């Protein structure tokens, strides 16, 4: 695996921006879980708590025009990409003001305005479609890049292999971001994956592959920077394997029987969010008060979105006939 020489370093402002995005993900995630637990939302919820650094660092390098494809565990990717929270909440509540009028729900959120093009519940399917969006960017002659997010389990699916091969021969401006949290549902990484590092698989497709500490903002930023610059320069795709840990199991309510208490405790002790906060203060990049203000603003934004979403009206049943095709047809 190639190592980075002259790793790009985020500015202090960028580090604070990464922190802000991470807090927005964490506060939003917390509010969703509370609301589900209190019975005010009914939905399957796949928390990405613990994985905040990955999309937060990447998103500081993206423009509004850049696009992402993500998966059922992808609300963190969307929040990092500046998706407005009001329509997000209305959508997860199945309400009419949702991004998708309540027809997609938490596993199929879409918001092209923010560059969130596809959210899929089918493991591995973010990648083939991201390629097509990247092909369009190439044909448009634009500098737009596309991020394909997926899990470690997804790298064992045929679509992963087909997509890396195609992206490589077509030199597509796509970045394959594997968020390797060590588990696919209940199955441990090493019980289902033939290589010790997924990044090694990039070699088979003749593209750079990096194993990155997905909980370290500096490492994550540096590698995302290199991959995105490469894509923008027309040099083709990169595979980033970002090592992380999911703190809250596969799906909300999961009792984590498949992992040891020790490994979970050890991972949570390294929670990237308080760690970044501490280092921002220690390094003099921000004061306690500045960071508290960021948190308070985000809490207000989340509370407003929650209120809005839960109070949005239910969709009309006539929606069953709409958006099947561009034109409504009797069937």
């Amino acid at each position, binding site marked *: 695996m190639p190592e980075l020489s002259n790793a790009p370093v985020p500015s202090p402002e960028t580090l604070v921006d990464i922190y802000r995005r991470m807090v927005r993900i964490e506060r939003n995630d917390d509010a969703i879980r509370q609301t589900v637990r209190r019975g005010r939302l009914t939905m399957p919820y796949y928390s990405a708590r613990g994985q905040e650094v990955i999309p937060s660092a990447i998103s500081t390098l993206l423009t509004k025009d850049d696009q992402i494809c993500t998966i059922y565990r992808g609300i963190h990717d969307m929040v990092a990409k500046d998706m407005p929270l009001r329509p997000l909440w209305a959508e997860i509540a199945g309400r009419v003001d949702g991004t*998708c009028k309540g*027809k997609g729900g938490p596993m199929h959120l879409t918001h092209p305005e923010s560059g969130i093009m596809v959210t*899929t519940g089918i493991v591995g399917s973010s990648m*083939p*479609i991201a*390629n097509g*969006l990247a092909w369009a960017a190439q044909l448009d002659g634009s500098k737009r890049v596309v991020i394909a997010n997926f899990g470690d389990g997804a790298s064992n699916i045929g679509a992963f292999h*087909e*997509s890396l091969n195609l992206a490589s021969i077509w030199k597509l401006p796509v970045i394959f971001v594997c968020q390797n949290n060590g588990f696919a549902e209940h199955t441990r990484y090493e019980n289902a994956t033939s290589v010790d590092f997924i990044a090694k698989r990039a070699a088979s497709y003749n593209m750079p592959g990096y194993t990155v500490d997905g909980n370290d903002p500096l490492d994550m930023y540096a590698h995302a920077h290199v991959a995105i610059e490469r894509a923008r320069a027309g040099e083709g795709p990169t595979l980033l394997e970002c090592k992380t840990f999911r703190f809250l199991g596969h799906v909300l309510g999961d009792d984590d029987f498949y992992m040891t208490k020790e490994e979970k405790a050890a991972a949570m002790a390294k929670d990237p969010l308080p760690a970044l906060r501490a280092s921002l203060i220690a390094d003099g990049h921000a004061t306690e008060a500045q960071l508290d203000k960021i948190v308070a603003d985000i809490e207000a934004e989340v509370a407003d979105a929650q209120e809005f979403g839960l109070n949005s009206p239910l969709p009309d049943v006539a929606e069953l006939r709409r958006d099947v095709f561009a034109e409504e047809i009797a069937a």
Partner: protein
Amino acid sequence: MTEMLKMNGIQAINAAMFEAMAADDKVLVLGEDIADREGGGVTGTMKGLSTKFGDHRVRTTPISEQAIIGAAIGAAMAGYKPVAEIMLMNFTTVAMDMIFNHAAKLRFMSGGQTSVPLTIRTLTGAGWQTAGQHSDHLEGWFAHAAGIKVVCPSNPADMKGLLMSCIADPDPCIFVENGMTLFVPGEVAADQGPIPLGKAKVVVEGTDLTIVTWSAQVMRSQMALAGLAEAGISAEIVDLRTISPWDKETVLASVVKTGRALVVHEAVRNFGPGAEIAATINEELFGQLKAPVKRLGGAYCAVPFAKVLEDAFVPQPDDIVAAAKAMMG
């Protein structure tokens, strides 16, 4: 008077592609072996396109059906109009996730925010002894997925006009070419333009019985006409052309006139598209039918290899005559 040209389905499809690509630079082509370097597609339907329109718009792909349809979906979402070739219809199974879970559903799941104006062209049809994994008619699978239009043309003029409509359509379409009809020449108007999707065509008028059919079975139904006439049966043949959404109006109007309906298709009869059509006719016209609606479809097995078995698998003209006679009772 419009000039009529004699051409087969391959030439008609090729003409549609040339016109569509020249008219709109958002039209793209991708698939295995489709560039001229590789021969312009397995039946040569894409010949000349890469030379004329360039490698960027016409791309030979690896043998990666999921990647082909996925790339086509993404490009379609970003404003292009890709035409993806899946060499044979059985190979769509490899890309079923992309077609069924994604192409067909993204508009609905996104509440109309994204659309997938994608055309999938594919080839199938019994009669070439390619057996179980190379000749299935799977239009019923796709018709069952809300959100994708299913087109099964039977002749060169329709192939040209319907393909042009598929490419222009804002939604995903699967365009199923039948190997038995592809090589048969027909008359195509020099200025043949788009033919609307979802509209059937009465190809033969009659008074006693309506045959509802499509694709190669239109040809076999026409071959049955002599036998039907001999039995004193005046048959009306309705070529459905689009399987989903299907043209209920034209079918029901014809059955009101004749009082009898026989649905004939090459797809396996069990749970096949004929069941949907027969059930609808029963629901709508129960009191007006002179006989129960009847279905003829492929046998409940994989398409067999041995010629004698393959012929028995597909409803043949004699089967159509026999079924019609039984309905006249």
